[in-house]
C-alpha cells in the first residue's frame, strides 16, 4: 500500500470537519519528504506516523463538546421515541425479556448440572464414584460389598455409600413424607461437609439421623422440645447433628434430602438389606488420599475386584465383571450423558428462540424507522449525518434490549420451577440463575440485537430524502420476503401448537384408557411398613376395617404392588412338564400379592374360577391372567398347577387379559398370589368410592391410628397415577406447548410489523380508495383478506410440518392418531385467529388513512 493511499484510508477516521486540513497537512509533508535529498524516513515509514495522529484527531473529535451533546441528545431523543410508542415498546421489551429469560434459565441449568459441583462439598475434585461397570451405566452395590470394598481401598481412598429413599416424619395426622438418604458412617467425612449441633457421627448399627440445614431451621423448636428426638417411620430416632448450610448431597440428579439416615435407622423394617450380598442398593463414592491419582484408585479397584471374586464365589455374581471408577461427583455417568444431550437441545432451542425474537424486534424497529422517514428527512436537511441517525435508532434498540434484559431477570427467576418440572429427572441443586448467567444472556441479547439492527436501520436511514419530506416513500422492496418469513413463523407456531395439543390429548387419553380393569373412582393409598409389633394379619384386618368404615367407600383391597405404581416384580417359571433348559420353556410372570378385595375394587373380570377360597389352602392357590394361563396350560383339559421353588401353586381362577405394565404394550402374563400367604405387610391399599369430595383426608385420618405398623405416605386417584406412567409424553407436551406459546408471540409480533409496513407502503392506494368513496371498513377488509391468505398458507405449510412431526413422534402418542382431524382443525382455526388478531391494529390504521395527505403530490 503506498503512502498516499494509507493517508486517504486513515483520513476516514478523522472527523469530517478536520479531514481536509489533516490530509493536506500530511500530503504537504509527504511531498516535501519525497523532494528532499536528506529524507529522515521512507515515504511509507513516514506515512505510518499518521496513524497515531489520525487516532488523536478522532479521539479529539469525540471529546468535542458538540459531539458529547450529540450523544446525550440522541439518547434523550431515543428515550422519547420509546415512550411515544408504548404498545410496540412494551411488546419489544416482553419479547426480549422472554427470549433472554429462556437463555438465562438454560445457561443456569447447564451450569448447575454439568459445570458446578454440588454446593458445600470440600475439595470436590478429590471425589470419585465407584460401582459395577460399564462406566456409562455405573451401577450400585450391596451393603456387604461396600464394606469389603472400603477395606480393600483403604490404602488409597476413603469410601462411603448412600441411597435415596423417602421417610415419614412425625406421627398421626401431622406425619409428612420427606426425601432422605441412607448413608454409611463415613459419608460426611468423605464429602468433607461438617456436621454441627451434635456428636455428628452416624453408626451403622444404631439409629440416628443428620438433618439438613433447611429442615433444621423449619423444625428446630419442635425437635428441641422433643429432646432432639424425631419420629422417623414411626420410630423415635435421635438427631446426631445438622449438616452444613447449603449441602444437598453429592448428586445433582436427585431430590434435595431433608435428612440423612444411618443404615441402622433405614433398615429397621428391612433387615435383609444389611446382609444380602445380592441386594444392590447403595451408590458408592470415595475421596482419594492426598497425592493419590485417579488412575491409582482405578488400579486399586481392579485389584480389589479380582481379590474379592477370588476370595468368594458369592462376589462373582454380585460385583459384576469389573469395578469402574469415575472421577468427580454431581451426576452419575448415565445422567451426565442424558443431561449433556438435553442441555444441547435446550441451548439450541433457547438460542433459536432468542435469535428469532430479536429478528422480530429488529423488524418492529425497522417499521418504526420507516414510519419516521419524514422526521428523518428533516434531520438530514438540518445537517445530521446518516451515522448519527443510525446511532439514534440503535440507542432506541439498546434501551429496549436493556429493559428487556431486566424483565428477563424477573422472568428467569419465576421460570425456575417450570424448568425443574420439565426435566425428566429430579434436580437437587438450585436452578436459580446467578448473575453470571443473566449477564451472559443479556450481553448475547444486546449483541445479537445490535448486529441484526445495523444493516436494516442503515438502509432505513436512506429514506430521509426530499420525497420523504413530501410524504412519498421509497418502497423497501423486501416486504414479500418478510411476508414469506412471517408465513413460515406462523406455520411453525401452528406445528408446535398441534404437536402440543396431540401430546396433551395423549396424556388425557392415558387417564381414560381401559387397561382391562376399572380405574375410575379408585383411590390408591401408598403405605410404608413400620416396626410395629403386631402381626401382618392383624394389620391387614385393621386396615380393611378402618377404610371400609368410611362413608361412601364401596370396596377395599390390599396389595404388595399395584399395576403402574411402585415398580414391578417378575418371576420366571418353567412350563409344566419341561425342564426349563430351553428358553421357550420359561415364562416370565409379573407377580402381585393381593387380597380378595383387590379384585372387587378394580372389578377384574374373571374368565373362569375366582379368588382362592382360603389363603391357607394346600397346595397354594393363585389367580392367573388368561395369557399366562394359555401359555402355561395350552391344553385346557389338564390340571392347572405350577411347580415353583416354594412349592406347588394351583390356579384358582383365570382373569381376562389386562395391561398391567404398559399402556402401549400387549396383555401382561401375570400371577396374583394371596397376600395372606406371603406374610408381607401391604404397601398399597386401594378403595373404590363414588364420592367426589375429600375422601383422601378422611382416609389419612382413619389410618393414622395405625402409625405404629404402617404409615400413609400418599393418597392419589388411580387414573392420575396411570397417566403419570407416560413421563416422556408429559415432558414432550410441556416443552411443545411452552415453545408454541413463545412461537405464537413471535409470530404475532412479526406479522404486526410486516402488516404495518405494508399499510404504510400502500397508504396512497388506500387514500385513493377512500377518496373514491370506499368505506373505512372496506379498506380494513382489503388488509384482512391479505392476512387471511397468509394465515391459510401458514396452515397449509404448518399442516405439512405437523404431519411429519407427529409421524416422527408416534411412540409418544397414546390413544390418538398422529393425523387427528380434530387437532388439525382446532390448530388451523387458532392460527387464523392469531393472524387476524395481530393484523387488526394496522388494518384499523389503514381504514383511518387521510385521503388528502395520501393524494398530495410529492415534491
Amino acid at each position: 500500500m503506498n503512502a498516499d493511499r494509507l493517508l486517504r484510508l486513515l483520513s476516514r477516521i478523522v472527523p469530517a470537519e478536520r479531514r481536509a486540513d489533516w490530509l493536506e497537512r500530511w500530503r504537504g509533508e509527504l511531498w516535501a519528504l519525497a523532494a528532499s535529498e536528506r529524507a529522515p524516513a521512507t515515504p511509507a515509514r513516514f506515512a505510518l506516523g499518521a496513524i497515531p495522529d489520525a487516532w488523536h484527531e478522532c479521539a479529539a473529535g469525540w471529546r468535542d463538546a458538540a459531539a458529547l451533546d450529540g450523544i446525550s441528545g440522541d439518547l434523550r431523543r431515543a428515550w422519547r421515541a420509546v415512550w411515544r410508542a408504548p404498545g410496540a415498546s412494551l411488546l419489544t421489551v416482553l419479547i426480549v425479556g422472554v427470549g433472554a429469560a429462556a437463555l438465562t434459565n438454560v445457561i443456569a441449568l447447564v451450569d448447575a448440572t454439568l459445570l458446578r459441583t454440588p454446593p458445600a462439598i470440600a475439595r470436590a475434585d478429590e471425589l470419585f464414584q465407584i460401582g459395577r461397570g460399564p462406566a456409562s451405566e455405573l451401577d450400585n452395590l450391596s451393603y456387604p460389598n461396600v464394606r469389603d470394598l472400603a477395606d480393600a481401598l483403604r490404602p488409597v481412598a476413603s469410601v462411603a455409600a448412600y441411597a435415596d429413599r423417602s421417610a415419614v416424619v412425625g406421627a398421626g395426622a401431622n406425619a409428612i413424607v420427606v426425601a432422605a438418604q441412607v448413608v454409611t458412617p463415613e459419608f460426611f467425612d468423605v464429602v468433607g461437609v461438617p456436621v454441627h449441633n451434635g456428636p455428628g457421627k452416624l453408626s451403622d448399627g444404631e439409629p440416628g439421623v443428620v438433618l439438613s440445614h433447611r429442615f433444621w431451621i423449619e423444625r428446630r423448636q419442635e425437635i428441641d422440645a422433643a429432646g432432639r428426638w424425631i419420629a422417623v417411620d414411626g420410630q423415635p430416632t435421635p438427631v446426631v447433628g445438622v449438616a452444613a448450610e447449603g449441602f444437598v448431597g453429592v448428586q445433582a440428579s436427585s431430590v434435595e434430602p431433608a435428612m440423612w439416615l444411618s443404615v441402622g435407622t433405614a433398615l429397621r423394617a428391612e433387615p435383609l438389606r444389611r446382609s444380602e450380598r445380592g441386594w444392590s442398593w447403595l451408590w458408592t463414592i470415595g475421596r482419594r488420599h492426598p497425592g493419590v491419582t485417579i488412575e491409582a484408585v482405578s488400579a486399586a479397584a481392579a485389584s480389589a475386584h479380582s481379590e474379592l471374586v477370588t476370595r468368594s464365589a458369592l462376589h462373582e455374581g454380585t460385583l459384576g465383571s469389573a469395578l469402574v471408577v469415575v472421577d468427580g461427583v454431581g451426576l452419575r455417568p448415565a445422567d451426565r450423558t442424558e443431561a449433556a444431550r438435553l442441555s444441547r437441545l435446550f441451548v439450541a432451542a433457547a438460542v433459536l428462540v432468542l435469535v428469532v425474537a430479536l429478528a422480530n424486534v429488529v423488524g418492529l424497529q425497522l417499521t418504526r424507522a420507516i414510519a419516521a422517514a419524514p422526521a428523518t428527512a428533516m434531520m438530514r436537511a438540518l445537517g445530521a449525518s446518516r451515522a448519527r441517525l443510525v446511532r439514534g435508532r440503535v440507542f432506541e434498540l439498546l434501551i429496549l434490549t436493556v429493559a428487556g434484559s431486566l424483565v428477563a431477570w424477573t422472568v428467569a427467576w419465576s421460570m425456575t420451577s417450570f424448568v425443574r418440572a420439565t426435566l425428566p429427572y429430579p434436580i437437587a441443586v438450585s436452578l436459580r440463575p446467578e448473575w453470571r448467567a443473566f449477564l451472559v444472556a443479556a450481553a448475547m441479547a444486546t449483541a445479537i440485537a445490535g448486529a441484526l439492527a445495523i444493516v436494516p436501520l442503515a438502509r432505513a436511514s436512506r429514506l430521509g430524502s426530499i420525497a420523504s419530506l413530501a410524504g412519498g416513500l421509497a418502497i423497501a422492496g423486501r416486504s414479500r420476503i418478510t411476508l414469506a418469513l412471517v408465513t413460515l413463523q406462523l406455520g411453525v407456531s401452528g406445528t408446535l401448537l398441534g404437536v402440543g395439543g396431540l401430546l396433551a390429548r395423549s396424556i388425557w387419553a392415558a387417564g381414560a384408557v381401559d387397561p382391562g380393569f376399572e380405574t375410575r373412582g379408585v383411590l390408591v393409598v401408598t403405605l410404608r411398613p413400620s416396626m410395629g409389633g403386631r402381626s401382618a394379619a392383624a394389620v391387614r384386618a385393621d386396615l380393611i376395617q378402618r377404610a371400609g368404615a368410611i362413608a361412601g367407600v364401596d370396596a377395599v383391597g390390599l396389595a404388595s404392588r399395584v399395576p403402574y405404581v411402585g415398580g414391578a416384580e417378575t418371576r420366571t417359571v418353567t412350563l409344566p412338564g419341561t425342564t426349563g433348559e430351553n428358553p421357550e420353556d420359561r415364562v416370565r410372570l409379573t407377580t402381585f400379592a393381593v387380597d380378595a378385595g383387590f379384585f372387587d375394587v378394580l372389578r377384574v373380570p374373571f374368565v373362569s374360577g375366582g379368588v382362592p377360597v382360603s389363603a391357607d389352602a394346600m397346595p397354594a392357590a393363585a389367580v392367573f391372567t388368561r395369557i399366562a394361563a394359555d401359555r402355561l396350560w395350552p391344553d385346557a383339559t389338564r390340571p392347572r398347577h405350577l411347580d415353583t421353588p416354594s412349592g406347588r401353586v394351583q390356579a384358582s381362577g383365570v382373569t381376562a387379559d389386562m395391561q398391567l405394565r404398559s399402556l402401549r404394550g400387549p396383555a401382561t402374563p401375570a400371577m396374583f398370589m394371596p397376600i395372606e400367604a406371603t406374610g408381607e405387610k401391604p404397601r398399597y391399599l386401594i378403595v373404590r368410592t363414588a364420592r367426589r369430595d375429600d375422601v383422601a383426608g378422611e382416609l389419612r385420618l382413619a389410618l393414622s391410628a395405625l402409625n405404629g405398623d404402617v404409615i400413609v405416605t400418599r393418597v392419589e386417584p388411580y387414573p392420575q397415577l396411570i397417566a403419570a406412567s407416560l413421563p416422556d409424553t408429559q415432558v414432550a407436551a410441556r416443552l411443545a406447548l411452552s415453545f408454541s406459546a413463545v412461537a405464537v408471540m413471535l409470530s404475532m409480533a412479526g406479522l404486526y410489523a410486516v402488516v404495518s409496513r405494508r399499510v404504510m407502503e400502500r397508504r396512497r392506494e388506500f387514500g385513493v380508495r377512500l377518496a373514491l368513496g370506499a368505506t373505512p371498513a372496506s379498506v380494513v377488509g382489503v388488509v384482512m383478506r391479505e392476512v387471511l391468505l397468509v394465515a391459510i398458507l401458514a396452515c397449509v405449510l404448518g399442516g405439512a410440518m405437523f404431519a411429519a412431526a407427529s409421524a416422527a413422534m408416534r411412540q409418544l402418542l397414546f390413544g390418538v392418531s398422529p393425523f387427528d382431524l380434530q387437532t388439525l382443525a382446532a390448530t388451523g382455526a387458532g392460527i387464523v385467529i392469531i393472524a387476524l388478531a395481530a393484523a387488526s391494529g394496522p388494518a384499523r390504521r389503514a381504514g383511518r388513512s387521510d385521503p388528502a395527505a395520501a393524494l398530495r403530490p410529492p415534491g
Partner: protein
Amino acid sequence: MRTRIGFATATIFEALARGNGFGLDIMRETGLPSGTVYPTLSRAEASGLVRGKWEARRQADLEARPRRRYYELTAAGHTALAEALTRFRELAGGHRARSRS
C-alpha cells in the same frame, strides 16, 4: 495554568525555537519519528503552546504541490520550554552529585 511538558515535547519545542518550523525539519533536527512529531505538534497547537499557520496557497499552487503547515512557539510554549529545561538541568545536576558521591 502552567503546562509541564515531557522530554520528547521539549526536544521538539527546542527545535521550533531554533527556527525549524516544518514537521519534516523537526524530524531531521531531533531524529524523532513522524508518529511522535506530528501528534505532539497537534496537541501542542490545541493546548496553545504552538501556533500553526498554513503557508501561502499561491506559493504551493505555483509549485504544484500541497500546502505545508508551519509551526512556531507561542509565549506559553516558550515558558513551558524554559521550565522544562530548568527541570531537566536540576535532574541532571542531582544525578551527577549522586554519581560523584
